[in-house]
């Protein structure tokens, strides 16, 4: 906390809104272990760091047909401390807008790079898709150095009527670093929002993804792969609100915890009173690969409407011993058989990404973590 205070103080002349945000942040206080929503996140690791530099400038690429500009945010409301902190550290946000009826073919890559030692970045993005528009965005959080840094990231998404957004977040920070992010998305009528979260880096990686289905027949798909080794803590909290009739949502989260790694998933689906005809599916499947690893998964359904179809399933298990024996009985080593089955489990989520080049990159990245024990040779 003292370190975060010091970081706020390094700003030469924080804007009035930033000072307000800082006051709000102080009022809200940092989440503690006793806070239900943060009890597994091991935030004490973040709190014990000393931050030396605040990095505010991020430059974003230009993209044909997309309007990208930096704006002052102005007044805002939140009851979430890290959002208040993000506003306190950064007065400006990037506004990324796709006008009505515009289909952007080229995926937009946003590299949220941190540079320097013990730095903190607080990027804020607003992605707005006009009606009938289409966009693919990839947000990548990483650093160009091996030293500790933190990203406190806030993203707002608005998907207009009949618009389609595929939104990937890649969190592959180095193992000393921290990512605390939030995505708040609002989906309009017939809108389609697909979010992929690859939470594989950092000492602590946490994302809160909140989706409001606000237009009839809106669709949200949330996919996540969390792969924790060493002593990583990787945590995703999702919350989908069905506010109107006949919206659909589908969630697929796969967790892999090896060594002393910890994977956390908490997924809430809230179906409001008038949201009849809701179709919501949620699946959290997890592989526990070592006796010292930990998985905490908690699906929650809260339904206030009649005539809805909601399902959820959460499993925690080991690799299938029948499948292991089968592969080994064909001459494949135990180590390779284990790697193959684990990769297949990860691929089930990676394969949901529609961008070929990204899918291949992700597959390679996950393969690399097995030291290429199972590099495809066909």
């Amino acid at each position, binding site marked *: 906390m003292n370190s975060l205070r010091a970081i706020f103080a390094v700003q030469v002349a924080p804007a009035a809104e930033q000072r307000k945000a800082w006051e709000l942040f102080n009022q809200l206080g940092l989440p503690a272990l006793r806070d239900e929503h943060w009890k597994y996140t091991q935030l004490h690791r973040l709190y014990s760091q000393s931050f030396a530099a605040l990095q505010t400038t991020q430059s974003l690429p230009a993209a044909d047909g997309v309007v990208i500009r930096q704006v002052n945010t102005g007044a805002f409301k939140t009851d979430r401390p890290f959002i208040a902190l993000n506003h306190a550290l950064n007065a400006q946000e990037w506004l990324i807008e796709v006008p009505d009826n515009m289909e952007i073919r080229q995926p937009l890559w946003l590299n949220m790079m941190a540079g320097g030692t013990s730095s903190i970045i607080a990027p804020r993005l607003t992605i707005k898709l006009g009606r009938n528009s289409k966009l693919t965005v990839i947000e990548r959080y990483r650093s160009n150095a091996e030293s500790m840094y933190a990203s406190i990231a806030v993203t707002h998404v608005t998907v207009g009527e009949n618009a389609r957004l595929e939104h990937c977040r890649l969190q592959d920070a180095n193992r000393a670093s921290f990512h605390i992010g939030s995505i708040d998305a609002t989906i309009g009528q017939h809108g389609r929002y697909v979010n992929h979260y690859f939470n594989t880096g950092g000492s602590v990686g946490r994302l809160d993804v909140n989706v409001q289905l606000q237009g009839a027949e809106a669709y949200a798909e949330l996919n996540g792969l969390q792969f924790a080794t060493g002593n990583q803590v990787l945590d995703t909290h999702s919350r989908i609100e069905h506010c109107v009739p006949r919206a659909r949502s589908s969630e697929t989260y796969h967790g892999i915890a090896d060594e002393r790694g910890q994977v956390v998933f908490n997924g809430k689906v809230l179906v409001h009173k008038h949201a009849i005809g809701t179709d919501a599916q949620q699946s959290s499947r997890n592989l526990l690969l070592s006796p010292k690893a930990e998985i905490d998964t908690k699906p929650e359904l809260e339904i206030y409407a009649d005539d809805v179809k909601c399902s959820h399933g959460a499993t925690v298990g080991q690799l*299938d011993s029948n499948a292991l024996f089968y592969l080994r*009985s*064909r*001459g494949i080593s*135990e180590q*390779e058989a284990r790697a*193959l089955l684990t990769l297949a489990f990860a691929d089930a989520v990676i394969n949901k990404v529609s961008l070929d080049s990204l899918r291949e990159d992700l597959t390679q990245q996950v393969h690399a973590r097995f030291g290429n024990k199972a590099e495809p*040779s066909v």
Partner: protein
Amino acid sequence: MLTIKDLHVNVGDKEILKGISLQVNAGEVHAVMGPNGSGKSTLSQVLAGRDGYTVTKGSITYNGKNLLDWSPEERAREGIFLALQYPVEIPGVNNVYLLKAGLNAIRKHRGLPELDAFEFLTLVKDKMKLMQMDESFLSRGVNEGFSGGEKKRNEILQMAVLQPQLALLDETDSGLDIDALRIVANGVNSLRSKDRAIVMVTHYQRLLDYITPDHVHVLAGGKIVKSGDKSLALELEKRGYDWLTAEHVAA
């Protein structure tokens, strides 16, 4: 090639095999028959190195070496192949990947170079023709969404590609219709050679109409109660197993 002496095997505290002795030589085809629960599948699983089976007494030697010292993959690399009664579905691992990884692991073990992509695909496509399988099976997950018959054909395809020295078939005929049975039998017969031995575990005689065994053994209550030639299988078809188990109990 394979010598089993006085083999006793437990699953948990329960003794399933109670003293089995069997000699299998290169070039021979053996059929191990018997009623349900007699220990037939246990025998094939123990030979392939499955966990959960404890050998309490006796020995298994393969080409003069102690088979029980080896892991399942070492056995496979030394030339043992088990076609499973219930092949496992493994979504996300390609059939073609499994075949290539297995074949190259075995070749490497024998000091042979890996096959290049062209040689490998030529070999696999040739064997797929033999098993009357569509090439689209290659890119699918291992046994993923396969029918019972397709799974069994896939087992024999793997066997045809991996070219084992000792092939073990566990209830390969179960769940097959007559056309699929003919294809599977054809695949197995194509592998008969003077250097290779085949041990078939089966409940019914009908597989033996297509794959003629040199030796037939009846396993009951964890012991081989009778051995003979192919005429024994025909007798079993007529008389069932009761007369043998009764004879065994009386003895």
